[in-house]
Each structure stands twice: as structure tokens, then as C-alpha cells.
């Protein structure tokens, strides 16, 4: 049986879900036997290749997030929402209490640590009006909630998708 191909992306999140993924520890060896990681935040991949499983960490906050999400959706046979930001909006969603101009001002003008003094208009992707979970933009096939999801929950879902064996009853956690 040919090895499956997994791509992971890091959108508007803290990378905690990817940390939890790495916390699979020795199971990463089992994973390597079953699949190749063809794209991830630590691999310098310019264009997401065709893949069997796409894992999405993070909510959709700006145009780039949305572009990457749509690209992965087009390339992945199965799209999995990884973590609370992708599935529920979670912490990035706090931004929705404010206007975008207020948020940008806070980050680029009012922040004491920022020497720039003005909101950049190049190279930084434009914010979308509201932060939203990924399934409000594209079709999602499975959700692994958790902040971050436990390595066990990730392994349960990923190994089921790789082997085709049904997963056990998932243990949900929102925190």
C-alpha cells in the first residue's frame, strides 16, 4: 500500500496544535511508516501539493489565511480541523469585539514596543472583517477540538484516517 500524504497548515493560531502534534513522540515513528508529511509550517513548501489528509490549525483572520485554506481544500481529499481556533474561532475570535482599525492601531501604533508608528499597507495581509472558524468558508470533513487537542485525540483521528479503521468514540475536550 502506497504511503499516504499529509499536509498541515498553521493559520491564525498559536502553533500549540502543531506542538501537540509533535507530542505524538514515539508514535511519530509509526506515523512515518504510514505517511509522508508533504507540507507543514516547518517545511519550506511554496505550494501545497496534492495530499490525502489536510490538517488545519488556526482560525481565518486575514486574506492569506483564507487563500491557504482554500488551496489546501482543493488539494486535500480529507480536510481536518485541528483545535479550537479552526473549529470554534476561539482566542483569535476575541478580535471580533473591536473594529479592525482599532485592532491595527493597537498592534502597530499604540503598542509600546512598536517603532513603526503606522499601520503597514504592504507585505502584511489585509484583515478580514471578522475572525471565523474554517468551516464557515470551506467544507470540513472532521473536527478535532481542544486547546490544544491532546496527542491521543490527534493520533486517534489521524491513525483512523490513515488505516481506514473506524475511530473509537472520541473523547471531546474544549480546553
Amino acid at each position, binding site marked *: 500500500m502506497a504511503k499516504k500524504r499529509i499536509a498541515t497548515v498553521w493559520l491564525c493560531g498559536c502553533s500549540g496544535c502543531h506542538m501537540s502534534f509533535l507530542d505524538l513522540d514515539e508514535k511519530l515513528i509509526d506515523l512515518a511508516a504510514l505517511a509522508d508529511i508533504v507540507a507543514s509550517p516547518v517545511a519550506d513548501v511554496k505550494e501545497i501539493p496534492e495530499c490525502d489528509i489536510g490538517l488545519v490549525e488556526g482560525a481565518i483572520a486575514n486574506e492569506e489565511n483564507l487563500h491557504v485554506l482554500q488551496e489546501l481544500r482543493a488539494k486535500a481529499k480529507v480536510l481536518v*480541523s485541528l483545535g*479550537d481556533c479552526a*473549529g*470554534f*474561532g*476561539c*482566542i483569535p*475570535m*476575541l478580535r*471580533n*469585539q473591536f473594529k479592525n482599525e482599532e485592532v491595527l492601531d493597537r498592534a502597530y501604533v499604540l503598542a509600546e514596543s512598536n517603532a513603526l508608528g503606522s499601520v503597514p499597507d504592504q507585505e502584511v495581509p489585509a484583515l478580514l472583517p*471578522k475572525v*471565523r*472558524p474554517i*468551516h*464557515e468558508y470551506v467544507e*470540513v470533513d472532521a*473536527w*478535532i*477540538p481542544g*486547546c490544544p487537542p491532546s496527542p491521543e485525540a490527534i493520533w486517534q483521528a489521524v491513525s483512523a484516517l490513515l488505516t481506514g479503521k473506524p475511530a473509537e468514540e*472520541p473523547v*471531546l*475536550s*474544549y*480546553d
Partner: protein
Amino acid sequence: MSRIRMTINGKAVSAFEGQTVLEVCRQNDIFVPTLCHLDGLTDIGACRLCIVEIEGQRRPVPACTTPAEDGQAVLTSTPALEDLRRQTVELIFGERNHICPFCPRSGNCELQNAGYECNVDHLRYNYLFPTLPVDNSHPRIALDHNRCVLCARCIRACDEWIGAHVLDFDNRGSKSLLVADNGIPLGQSSCVSCGTCVSVCPTGALFEKRSAHWQGRLPKELTETICPGCGVGCRINASVRHRQIGEMSPAGGPSGNKVLCARGRFGLVNPTAPRVTAVKVKRGNQWVERPLKDVLAECARRLSSAPIQASPERVIALISPRLPLETISACQGFMTQVVNSPRWSIVDRTDATGIKRNLGMNGKAVPLAGLRELDEADMFLLVGCNLERTHGVIASYVRRGVLHRRAKLVKLNPKHAWLTEWTDLPILVDRNRDDKVLTAMLKYLIEDGKARLDMPEELAQRLSKMTDDDVTAATGVPAAQIREAARLYGQAQKPIVLCGTGVAGIYGQSTRGIAAAMNLVKAARQKTSAGRWRLMELAAGANTYGARLMGDSELNIDHLDPHSADVAFVVIGDDDWAWGREWIEKLRTISFVVVLTARNHEVLESAHVVIPTASWAERQGTYVNLEGRVQKGCRLMEPAPGCIDEVAFFEQLARAWRGPEFTWSPTAGLEPVRQLADGHMVPCQSREEPIDLAAIEALVAEV
């Protein structure tokens, strides 16, 4: 109540008419998810999680508000119900901004659990992202509207349990907003800060600020202890990790109390004074650390002085009534068995010797009303109480009685404005004459045939011959007011007299106020179903009654003459009760004062030796509350390093002074409660006690 038969999920069950479908389900261990339901509150069917299908009904109905009926066929779980429940939970999540990872309630949240129960791994509805405020104005409680699910549990608890009704909804539908009073910040509202809203909130919308940042990391296991704050002795649940105490919540218990007051919930864990950490001796104006052995030798030398050998009553002891009975017993035992001085007392102005005489205590029991009787009362006669300040939980009982049962409220000697608009009759009377008002009430009750009292013919005649003018002159209160109070008392089926520390005589030379109140309930034959007198005396300490069971000495702290004492032992624990300046001054004249305390206390000004002891959270032991109920508390944490146990201190001191062979029993005082299990009442002495004629004499003597 007639029995009915019905089926739930095809299983035949029986129930009582008047029960709801939810109650019948719970009774039969059939799980139905709920969110707005809470045992003890009126159901309102707001959350729609408990929907069930009933054969013959066109749509699902909420189990919590649907009465069980004979022949009903109920289904609690069908694919259609499961889907509706899941939709409901998703809609609740999407309506506001629920972000679990930084919520203090996460891991212990009923909305989260409902999500898990209904397998919600994402929302099929778009979020509304409303912009909602956070009310951070209260010093202890925060209100985050983003997490509110509009279940109204806090509103109902504040109204039905606390009788405060501070909280309610503004606006309608999903725009509803929980508001305090007329929409003012919680911290400026009429909130009584009991924290009940925090306990009943299913989510993190209402949370305690102090523990919010570590609450999620606390173990789920709770330890039950006793609040030492007042005579009610509420049972408290708390979880602890690394000596940090999480939210304090009411643990219920046999007295049926569901609430705490501000002191119990927030005051105990927010002490202001720093801990005492070492044995110290005062040299001039300086405190110097000394080994315990040296201090014991010094104490023994003082106790061996010639004046004390000649008259041991020159040694006195003052003990906080907020300590476990074991500690009080050791101190009492040291005084009565080792020193042979009867002059020990708990520091509580309700240590009325009159109670013992009038109720026939004599080491038996306190046949006074319990908390359950407060919830039946149709009239409250408050004598010298400042309930909201001293007994917040009793204040809740009175408030809900007055507001919900329309119980009459008569206040004698009201010290402050409280429930003013609900007071049927406030009687302003000089503090030292409230006993005469009570006796005058008795006179009018006898005249109306509502009370009967056996007393000498001559005294009865003098009492009945008193005219209204005489009564007015004797009491300083218009006789018409006293007549009205007597009429209200005579009309009531289940009146309760509540005597606080402001009652006549507590500060004076006797306890005439208590005696007069006791005469009143006895003459009107006002007994509870349990045979206890409809009178409650508001003890200040969780163990005031416990100390009395040990045969509290005749020493009343207000009558103590310090010039007749050479050595004083003051055992405080971490009682932060204000002792009053006159006390500090009185102790100052005693040449050797040993203070055993957990925290810096103003009494240390007058002390010569200070011994560090455990704080309330580090103690376990027995308490007897104002109902006469035995309660056992567990320690929440081990004593801090360097703390010296009072029992060990007095044992070592006895050996240092009297020699190693001297034997005495520090636990002798525990005899009355030794055999009684947690929650049991100290047996009630049933024999009739004579009425207190002196209290009646006091009134007629004015003519």
C-alpha cells in the same frame, strides 16, 4: 399526594402527583441533560435541553416544567430529540462569545458538559459575535456577559434563596442582559456579596476574582469544613492545591442551609493581618524570638508566684468561640484541672448566663429553634439584631420569609436600616429597656387570652393593673406600638424571636432581654414541631454553644476586673473579631499576658508572650452551632511551619509547671458531644423550666 403510574422509555415507573417529569426521571436514574434546572429553584424551562417526547403531544416538551401525569408515556432519547438538543447547545454557543481555554469554569462547566454530551465538535450555525460588556465593579465577583447563557439561575437564587432579588434581566430574547438593580454596576448595587450567584452559575459568566486564575487547575475533590464566622456554622466545600484555596461553596448538610454569606465565602480567604510565625517575648517595646522551652519555663515561674498559689483565680483565660471544641476543651481543662481557676470564658457577648438559667442548660442542650423553623416562620420578632452584619445567612432566611411568605417583621431596637419598607413595625427603644417592651408585650398577650403564665397572684395583679400610660412610662415606647406588636405576635401561627447581641442585659449586669423573650415564647406556648422553643439566640462564634456545653464559667468578659488577675491566657486562633478598645486596655493592666494567635491581632499590644497557632483552614474538629447541632470539620491544609497546637502547648505547660507526673484530661470537656456523630443534635432537655419572674418584676417595679 396520590400515586400515579407512567412509563419512561418503555419502563413502568410510579410517581407522586405534583412531581415534574424531570423529577421522576432523576428519581429513576434516567439521565436527561439540563442547564437551567437547579435543585431547590423554581423551574422555568428556559434552556430546552431537557426536552422529552410525550405520547399524544405534537411537539417535544421540557421535562422540568411538565407535570407527571397518570398514564403518560415519556421518551427521553430519540434521534429527533438528540438532534434538537445538539442544535440547542450549538445555538447557545453561537449566541455569545464562549471561549473555553481561558475561562475559570472550564473543566467544571455545565455548558461545556452539555456540548460533550451532545457531541458538539463544531457549530453548524454562524456566530453572532455580539459586543458585550464585562462588569468588573464588584470587589469579589466578576460578571462576564459573554459567557451568560440566560438560564436565570442566579436571578432565581438571589431572589428565592437570598431574598435580595438584586439580579434580573433587562431587554428580551437574545438581547437579554443580566443586570443588577436598575442596570447599575454590580459593585454599586444592593448586592449583599454572598456569592450565591457564583455558585449557581452553570458557566463562567459569574466568577470569583480571587481564585479565577487557578480555579481550573484545582483538583475536583472537595474538602468539607465548618465556617467559624458565626453561630450558624455553615458547612463549606473547598478544593485546595499547594495551600491555595479555590472557590468556597455551601456544602448543605442536615440543617438544610443552601447559602453562605459574604464573610463565609470571601472573608475567610481574604485575611488582612499577616501570620505570626515564631514564639516571641516582648522585651521593652521589642518582640524577641525565644525557644518554646524557655517561654514555658517563664510561664511556669509566673504561675508559681505566691499570689497565684494562694488564689488561683488570679489566672484568667479568654478563648475565641470560633475554635474547634477540642481546642476550647484543652484550654478549659487547663484552667479548671491544672490551675483550679473558674475564670475562663469565651469571648462572645452572647455568653449569657441567663440562657443557662432560663433554658436549663446545665450541660445538656439548647432547646431553641433551628434553621428549618426559620423557613416556616410567619412572623419575625428581631430584638437587638444587626443581622446583615453579624449573621448574613440568617438575614437571607428572614428576607426570603418576609418577601416570599409575607411573614410579618417587627424590629425591636433596630440598629440600622434594613428591609425598612418591609418592616411592619419598627420599635425604637432604649437598648437597656427592650426587656421591658417584651414583658409589656406579654402583658397584652395575657390580656387578649393569647398567652398564659403561672405567676404569684400579687405579681399578676400588679402586671394587669398597669395602665397604658404606665407601660409607656416604663418602656419609653408608646403603648399602642407594643399592643400592635403583641397583636401581630398573637396572630402569628409560627413566630420566631431572634435575639442578637444588642439585647438588653448582654452589655449590662444580667441577661434580662433573653429572659423576657423566653418568658414570651413560653407563655404563648410557642413551640416548634420538634418541641423546641421558637426563639433563636444569635451566637457570635461557631462554637459559642459548644463552649456552653462544657459548662462555660460564670465569667462574663464584660464584667472582668483585670485588677484581680496576674496572668491571662488569650487564645485567638485567627479570629478577626473586633474585641473593642476597652478590652485591649483591660488586658494592658495584667502583668503577664500570653496570646496564642495565628495572625497579628490588636490584642498583641497588651501581650507579653505570643505563640503562633494554626489558622482556621489548618484546623479540624468539632463545632456545635446555634441549633445545638454537632458538626465536624476537616482541615483544608496542614498547619503552617512553626505553628504550635494549643492542646500540646497546655499539656507541655502543665508538665513544666506541675511536673511530669501531674495528670489531667484535656478532652474532659468534650464529654457531652463525644458520642454524637456529625450532624446530630445535642439531646434536648425536655423538662419545663420555670419562667423568669425577675424580668416581670423589672417592669412592674417601674410603676
